[in-house]
């Protein structure tokens, strides 16, 4: 299947500042892709180029095989949801939602019908005659979403649409958007810098760093198999351990860390200096020496987190953070223990 949305060698500069750097990105029809990255990494700029509000300095953008780089925003058929919702303050909820249909010259009676149906779908039917200023943040958010969906655009673009909501409402809206995506088969490009949001909602996550995509993969791959140090550190928490590859073959390698030889996942050359990424929750702590992939450690600190304990482990000069479930018993400071992990839970990153 050809890509529905494609960025080809797209660069965007503001003066001397390169904000998007020779970027390629392909998104399939019906896919939910999140753009995740730190502030200033170019996510919004990329979305603005897709919506037509910014022109790439060079490169082309394609929609369904046709170049749209020079198409003005109003002819792109993309519903956009802004961070602060950008509802029309002088129109009622119903008028806001009717606006895109009026732009398409849909007959009046049909507009009324479709607006009603769309508002009922997000349980806002009763509020249709209110002005946006008379709605709560979550309600405004739903109006903005409905307005972007009602004209059945090819693509929905969202720029941190949930950023202004409190945690509970945000999680609720995440589920609601995910549900809409599945039910309506929408193609969604979703900008966020909330990693848990990206992990729970997306088909694929594009991790941005300084105008480039460091990795684009399924949430699971991005989390379990980060390709770069940046991705490993940006998504979730991780332990980065320096070592040297002593043996390698296929997708497996043996890396020497201190005195221990650890077998890990990754395609590298023997003799290279590398970093290992090991998630805290993948570290098993035991009191008896395990056969493989084990490091002798001392518990240096133990932090109470309610549902789990966060342990700081020392092994020589190495410091690891591990997550211990409450069921796994107590690990008082000073306890001697053995930390082990499965080879597939540890990824090699090029140093």
């Amino acid at each position, binding site marked *: 299947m050809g890509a529905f949305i494609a960025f080809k060698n797209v660069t965007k500069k503001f003066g001397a500042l390169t904000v998007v750097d020779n970027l390629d990105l392909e998104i399939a029809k019906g896919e939910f892709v999140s753009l995740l990255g730190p502030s200033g990494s170019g996510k919004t700029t990329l979305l603005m180029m897709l*919506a*037509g*509000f910014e022109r790439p300095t060079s490169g082309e953008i394609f929609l369904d095989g046709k170049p749209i780089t020079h198409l*003005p*925003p*109003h*002819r*792109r*058929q*993309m*519903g*956009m949801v*802004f*961070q*602060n*919702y*950008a*509802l*029309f*303050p*002088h129109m009622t909820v119903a008028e806001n939602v009717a*606006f*895109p249909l009026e*732009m*398409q010259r849909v007959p009046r009676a049909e507009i009324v019908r479709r607006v009603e149906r769309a508002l009922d779908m997000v349980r806002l039917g009763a509020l249709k005659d209110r*002005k*946006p*200023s008379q709605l*709560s*943040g979550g309600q*405004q958010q739903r109006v903005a979403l409905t*307005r*972007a969906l009602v*004209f059945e655009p090819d693509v929905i*673009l969202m720029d941190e649409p949930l950023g202004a909501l409190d945690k509970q409402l945000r999680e609720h809206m995440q589920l609601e958007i995910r549900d809409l995506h599945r039910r309506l088969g929408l193609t969604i490009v979703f900008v966020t810098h909330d990693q848990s949001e990206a992990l729970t909602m997306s088909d694929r996550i594009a991790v941005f760093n300084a105008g480039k995509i460091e990795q684009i993969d399924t949430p699971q791959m991005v989390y379990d198999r980060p390709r770069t140090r940046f991705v490993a550190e940006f998504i979730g928490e991780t332990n980065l351990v320096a070592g040297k590859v002593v043996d390698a073959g296929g997708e497996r390698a043996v890396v020497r860390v201190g005195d221990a030889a650890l077998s890990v996942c990754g395609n590298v050359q023997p003799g290279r200096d590398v970093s290992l990424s090991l998630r805290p929750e993948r570290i098993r702590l035991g009191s008896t020496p395990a056969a493989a992939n084990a490091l002798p450690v001392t518990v240096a600190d133990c932090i109470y987190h309610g549902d789990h304990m966060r342990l700081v482990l020392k092994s020589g000069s190495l410091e690891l953070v591990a997550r211990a479930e409450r069921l796994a018993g107590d690990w008082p400071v000073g306890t001697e223990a053995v930390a082990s992990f499965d080879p597939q839970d540890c990824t090699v990153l090029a140093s």
Partner: protein
Amino acid sequence: MLRALQIVFGVLVVAFLILPIIAILPLAFTSSVFLTYPIPAYSLRWFEELVTADVWRLSIVNSLIIGIGATVLSTVLGTLAALGLRRSALPLAGLLRTLFLLPMVVPAVVLGVGMQILLVRLGLASSYTGVIIAHAVLCVPFVVVSVSAALQGIDPAIERAAMSLGAPPVTVFRRVTLPLAVPGVVSGAVFAFATSLDEVVITLFVAGPNQRTLARQMFSSIRENISPTVAAAALLLIVGTLCLAALAALLRRREKRATALP
């Protein structure tokens, strides 16, 4: 102690500002032919004079004609200017904005002299058109400031949203930008009208005897025959201006309620 001082100071400042107004107003109701205290008895004879005497009646009509003309002209021009100044790509935007606001700070006498010379050249001296143009020059800055403020308050994302929902630029302007700028346009127009209403200096230079405005008539009558009609006219002006100010405030409040996002 400090608090008491603050209150006293505040009262003094307010008194300083409004005492002249309070001093003149009761004289509008005097029955005497002199513009002085004490007031022997109260009557409405000077208001009658205001609407029956030809010079006064004509001046009121003139004020309305010129005020409305100047308001319409300056509101259209000022709104267009503010819209143009909003474009971020505009070169020398800062310089242009200063130019538009210049009539606010240039001494009225200078403006008056210049305007007179110019209008004579154009054959518009002592004509309604001439006075309306002269007043409009003075009013434009108020409209520019007020409309600019309203436009500044519009989140660019709102206009972008309209575009992404399929609205071409003209429609975005008609359906989104303009409606949101209307309160600014209206309050600019109110300011413009009030400015034209009490403008004397430039009127002295450019208006002929036929375009005598109320303010101008008050100015000359206070030098010729100090009749209490001046006080009656003053009351009329104050009430008129207060009504306009209240209207502007009301509009602003209503608009704020309608557009403010929590």
